[in-house]
């Protein structure tokens, strides 16, 4: 069994209106050192595989096909074996 933690963010080239607004809010709260905020998404996926390679393959496939939109988003993940 594996547990994947997937972090999705907008690509650097894509403007993030949500992040911008959060940054302005932080600035007005007095967090003057804030330079940039990007808002993303987080998934936790449990995968019933015994083989790490197969689990990773399946995870990449579901990210590329469903979980993210490659036109605007990119992702990184962390895959851990769990009992």
């Amino acid at each position, binding site marked *: 069994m594996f547990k994947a933690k997937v972090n999705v963010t907008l690509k650097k080239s894509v403007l993030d209106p949500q992040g911008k607004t959060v940054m302005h809010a932080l600035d007005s709260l007095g967090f003057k050192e804030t330079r940039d905020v990007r808002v993303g998404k987080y998934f936790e996926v449990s995968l019933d595989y015994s083989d790490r390679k197969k689990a990773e393959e399946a995870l990449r496939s579901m990210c590329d096909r469903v*979980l993210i*939109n490659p036109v605007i988003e990119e992702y990184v993940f962390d895959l851990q074996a769990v009992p």
Partner: protein
Amino acid sequence: MKAAVIVFPGSNCDTDCFHALRDVARMSVEYVWHKERNLPRTDLVVLPGGFSYGDYLRTGAVARFSPAMEAVAKHAAEGRPVIGICNGFQILLEAGLLPGAMLRNKTLTFVCRHVWLRVEDAANPFCRKMRQGQKLCIPIAHGEGNYYCDDETLKKLRDESRIAFRYCSEDGEVSEAFNPNGSRDHIAGILNEKRNVLGMMPHPERASESILASEDGRQIWESLLS
């Protein structure tokens, strides 16, 4: 002319589309539940607006996996017309039938009002009765209509004259000030390569009768009928 309106769980402009097509444009119209694998005999496919699957994951991201979408892709591949309105446009993008993606409106707010559009291309089945440069008053109602595509795609859309509509002022001026959502190049609607698939954020079905303040949307149905 026969039309099919695809209904997804969460569609909410399906009856408006049905009404505009049947009672205004006088087409013969059928609803098609998204679970159907085959479409009835139809000339036109309409993907209506709404919030399919509650906009979960991303707008249109779940609806694109509905069984009916395979039949819609086949219909499009055969060169027959498909129009996606608002959420329908978002579904077409997620399904890869049109290039690009939708981002949250630049203002982060849901925008619901009449806007002006400039017809940028009249050489397609949806705008045949219009002329290039003509202005249309049609309402929008969306939170994610901030169209995005990369530079290469934008160049292609421009070079191939596939931008059907841009947001503009009442006088036809296209600029940031008249762009309601921050969309790239002020895009309000685009066509596929074969020009038989149109995706647009504004709702022509809500501007098809004089009682609705504008009848400009009707020109799309009339173009399709001509």
